[in-house]
């Protein structure tokens, strides 16, 4: 890693930009400690009541549990689907590989709102609206392209000669994969898992079409809550979410190296 100090001009340019990007996020922190019954800045008094409300109010915990479960299932399925796909794309060197790859990453290029509407139209007759499987399927559309991209990059960098060496030493293709390929792409797997989870956990637009009173996700619940109540509870939940996201990113950075896995 290059340890050179960036030039002063760059710092002067970056600091306001960073402040501009982070200011709206940071403002949720003081609001979350507000004693007021409504969203206002600056708060007229300080308290932890909204954190208490977040942990004791049944609704928040319910949608949080849904979002976590959804994120975990979507992440696991994304990796299970994207890993063999990436293997095929990287290793088989078919002539139409780039066409397949474009097809699989196309959902990223579509406006999420259009995607959400389309999924709504398809899912309605199938009875998948406001169901867990429906949400999983919809989120997979968005997470798979990320997983595929990251895993393809990781696999392209995996040492082919070491895999061949393992084969000459008597390892069947499956054992070569477990013993040599998988350890080599572990950073990529960690990055893909973290990104899939965060993308799913954070998804609002498509989920808006697929959630209902029976089943909702945390971001969708927050969206509706602000519309209806506008109390600082959402600020407290936001701060908790920022903390959770930071923890995930930190874990990836410590175990796999953030720049190594994302920037390639």
């Amino acid at each position, binding site marked *: 890693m290059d340890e050179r100090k960036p030039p002063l001009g760059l710092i002067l340019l970056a600091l306001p930009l960073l402040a501009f990007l982070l200011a709206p996020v940071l403002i949720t922190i003081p609001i979350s400690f507000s004693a007021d019954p409504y969203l206002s800045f600056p708060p007229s008094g300080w308290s932890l009541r909204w954190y208490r409300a977040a942990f004791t109010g049944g609704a928040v915990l319910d949608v949080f549990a849904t979002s976590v479960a959804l994120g975990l299932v979507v992440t696991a399925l994304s990796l299970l689907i994207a890993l063999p796909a990436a293997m095929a794309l990287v290793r088989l060197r078919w002539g139409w590989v780039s066409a397949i790859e474009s097809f699989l990453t196309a959902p990223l290029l579509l406006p999420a709102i259009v995607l959400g509407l389309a999924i709504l139209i398809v899912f309605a007759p199938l009875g998948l609206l406001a169901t867990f499987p429906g949400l999983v399927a919809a989120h997979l559309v968005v997470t798979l392209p990320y997983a595929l991209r990251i895993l393809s990059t990781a696999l392209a960098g995996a*040492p082919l*000669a*070491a895999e*061949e*060496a*393992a*084969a*000459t*030493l*008597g*390892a*069947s*293709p499956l*054992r*070569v994969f477990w*013993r*040599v390929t998988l*350890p*080599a792409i572990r950073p990529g797997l960690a990055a893909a898992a973290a990104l899939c989870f965060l993308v799913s956990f954070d998804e609002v637009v498509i989920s808006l079409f697929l959630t209902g009173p029976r089943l909702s996700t945390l971001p969708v619940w927050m969206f509706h809550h602000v519309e209806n109540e506008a109390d600082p509870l959402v600020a407290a939940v936001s701060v908790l979410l920022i903390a959770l996201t930071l923890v995930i990113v930190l874990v990836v950075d410590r175990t796999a190296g953030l720049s190594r896995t994302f920037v390639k």
Partner: protein
Amino acid sequence: MTATDAPGHLAIRGLTKRYGGFTAVDGLDLDVARGELLAFLGPSGCGKTTSLRMVAGLVPASGGRIVVGGRDLTDVPTHRRDMGLVFQSYALFPHLSVARNVAFGLEMRGIGRAEREARVREAIALVRLTGKEEHRPAQLSGGQQQRVALARALVIRPQILLLDEPLSNLDAKLRDEMRIEIREIQQRLGITAIFVTHDQVEALTMCDKVAVMNGGRLEQLGPPLDLYERPATPFVASFVGRINQFRARAAGGIVGLGEARITGAGPAEGPVEVMIRPHRIALRPASAPVEDAEGRLNTVAGTVARTTFAGDVLHYEVAVGDAMIGVEEATRSDAGPVAPGTPVRLSWRPDDTLLFAAVARDGRMRP
């Protein structure tokens, strides 16, 4: 295929690899006897590595058979071929220690812990890496990594040991050491081995036999001495060792070279390629007395065009008629270099003159 069809421990019959319209290996036929070290020698792109990878099963053959110990392995997948392969890039498992790298093949074979540990220890001692068992590959030098790769390939006691340019990534001094070390280990274990290289010194010094390849074909297969002294083709003559090459015309077994007439082994009539090794030519000033009173040597007159002192040897370029002949002489303390412009006499034994029928660029014989 029966054992009688396959006299060698390893028998390769008509082995061919085509990529679309391009033929990388074209009908390779050869045998390697048990315990023999055979080199695949040739320039890059000659098909030597592709041939080795077909033997290992890493590249499917387009045609031909590979038979080891009477068993046809052509359609057997790599992991059931029982061959040890040492890669140019070492190809160690970066996430495993030296000991675990070496143990890998034994684990795949389901060999019990006690025997595994004993054999790993033995293999690591064989390549003189005792004490490095718990190191990761990244902590080792290139030479040490290549020795781990060698131990990893040998510990499974493979039928055939395959070495794919194993010394190319090492510096010159280490390369010399490893050359001797690999040869010693190979002979001590009596293991049949193929060594792919583009370096003629490696092929000549290490191997029992050398298969010179060019353009996907086998040019010549033989012991190093045969290759050097009796090359079958101009390609072999020029690829193995350095050699003078020029075109001339033969008539009645006599070749005209400038004013002189020389003789050699090869076609008696027509256009010929004349090839002579620089160090087989003696260079004397024209004023020196003629030592070859019986006229048994080929002798031509010329003028020194360039003299280069290289410590052990002197390189001369001598103009003889239209041709420029390179001469190499060991330096001597009692005679200095012959200066450019000096008229000289070159002489060599007729046996050292290699004559080949001149071949046109498209590979056909000239009319």
